[in-house]
């Protein structure tokens, strides 16, 4: 390359150069604007929910039921926890074992097929699951917490399976080989080596599913419907839940009821957020090997 050419290339600014810079800037600020547009509604949502809810947050809210004076949403808070906890207890062992089977034992063919089914299940709108539960489960168990548990469980199951599968896949093959080569039987390798290595991730999968189940509304509307009474552990009758409270209180005429809807929304949001933060923190800390 000659010196003349170097000079020409580097130093003779052309109109094309400035046009390019304009486009660079244009792209950059358009993308920034889009990012702000994406975040703004989220911020607004958090702002509205928080400011509207805070005036109504008092002790009565957490300990009293709707018909008490002063009224509260204790039955909804503890109803949601009972429903979601019962569902996760029922679903987590099944989901984890299914994921273990698919990842450690099943043939590739079966894995592909079941992954297709699980993906479909993940994509089923929750109202469809709710309708299924209403048509098939409610006639058996009645409008009750039990029916709600089944519906929420159906929605949680694919999340548990899928996430556990991903976590088990992260366990390096060399770990399984090391165990087998020590003369450890396959079942012990799976239980005490693979699952132990992936334990933190499996717990994360369960928390993730729990957080999803906590906010499900549609299936509860069709199966549990809600009540003003406090229900402790009687899954044969109806129960209240936070999404149901939010749904029925939002349209109310008096400011106290509407305020309690905001408060329920905030509590639900904080719970889901807290669980998601736990999941995030865990996934950062639990890199396998």
């Amino acid at each position, binding site marked *: 390359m000659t010196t003349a050419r170097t000079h020409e290339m580097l130093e003779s600014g052309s109109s094309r150069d400035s046009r390019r810079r304009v486009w660079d800037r244009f792209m950059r600020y358009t993308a920034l604007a889009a990012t702000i547009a994406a975040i703004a509604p989220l911020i607004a949502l958090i702002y509205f929910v928080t400011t509207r809810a805070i005036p109504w947050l008092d002790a009565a809210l957490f300990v009293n039921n709707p018909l008490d004076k002063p009224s509260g949403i204790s039955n909804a808070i503890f109803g949601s926890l009972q429903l979601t906890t019962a569902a996760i207890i029922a679903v987590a062992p099944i989901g984890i074992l299914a994921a273990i089977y698919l990842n450690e034992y099943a*043939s*590739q063919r079966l894995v592909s097929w079941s992954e297709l089914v699980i993906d479909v299940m993940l994509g089923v709108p929750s109202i469809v699951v709710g309708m299924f539960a209403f048509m098939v489960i409610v006639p058996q168990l009645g409008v009750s917490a039990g029916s709600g548990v089944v519906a929420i469980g159906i929605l949680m199951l694919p999340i548990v399976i899928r996430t556990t599968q991903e976590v088990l896949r992260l366990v*390096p093959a*060399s*770990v399984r*080989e*090391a*165990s*087998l*080569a*020590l*003369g*450890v*039987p396959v079942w*012990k*390798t799976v239980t*005490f*080596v693979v699952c*132990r*290595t992936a*334990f933190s991730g499996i717990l994360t999968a369960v928390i993730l599913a729990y957080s999803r189940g906590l906010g499900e509304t549609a299936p509860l509307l069709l199966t549990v419907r809600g009540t003003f009474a406090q229900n402790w552990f009687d899954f044969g009758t109806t129960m209240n839940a936070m999404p149901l409270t939010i749904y029925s209180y939002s349209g109310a005429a008096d400011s106290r009821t509407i305020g309690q809807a905001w408060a329920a929304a905030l509590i639900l949001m904080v719970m889901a957020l807290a669980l998601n933060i736990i999941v995030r923190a865990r996934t950062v800390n639990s890199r*396998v*090997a």
Partner: protein
Amino acid sequence: MGSEETTKRATKGTTSRLTGSDGADSAAPDTRPASTYALELNNVEAFYGTFRAVAGVSLKIAPKSVTAFIGPSGCGKSTLLRVLNRMHETLPGTSVKGETLLDGVDLYGPKVDPVRARRLVGMVFQKPNPFPTMSIYENVISGLRLAGVRSKSELEGVAETSLRKAALWDEVKDKLHQPGTSLSGGQQQRLCIARTIAVKPEIVLMDEPCSALDPVATLKVEELVRELAVDYTIVIVTHNMQQASRVSNTTAFFSMNEQRAGYLVEMDATNKIFTNPKEQLTSDYVAGRFG
């Protein structure tokens, strides 16, 4: 003399450790002559699906010796090594033909449980693979603990002897409860060796155990290999010919035929393979002319 009797008893031990019958339930005492070889392979072939990766290998390995498997990449050395502790079959679609005798007992016999075979024939892998969620101590005793040994004193004793034998004790004795993965690569590999010998195998297989290590760590592992040969029969796969010449008594040279199946070219005393091999192919390989 007593030595023949000892070998005979050793054989019997191997049989019962392989098949799980502890002599009491077998009516007749094992009177088969003791094998003078730790391992004897007759026409062994290994397959991945229909692809034959190892073709007709026959060889004999003397007890308490170091045997090196050398040869170009893809010549089936590692596959053959994995045949020797029944790890080959853990991959889907694989199969093995021929006879693999461990102390005269067919490793692939109908009564042999692969789990037992692997307790007798331990394996150290190319990349150090300590269990990531276990401490140094837990790693060493993992094989025993998972085999059901509960006694704390026994486990602690085995942990110390194994770490001593693996020349790692002095470096880790004060941090036994730190994660195994906190060690350096060379220490991790010696930890894996300690873990392997903790289950008291007869044979230790090593699949390029130094290829992920720096020269100093390599030297330490090589020293260790020679020390271990006092108690164990060692088969080591290596790409490094200096390593083969440094650590082994016997060297087996493998190559690939036209169908890409690995076969044994020749096996002889290590110094003979490196100075005066019978086959031209071997002398070309050890001189660095191919592979």
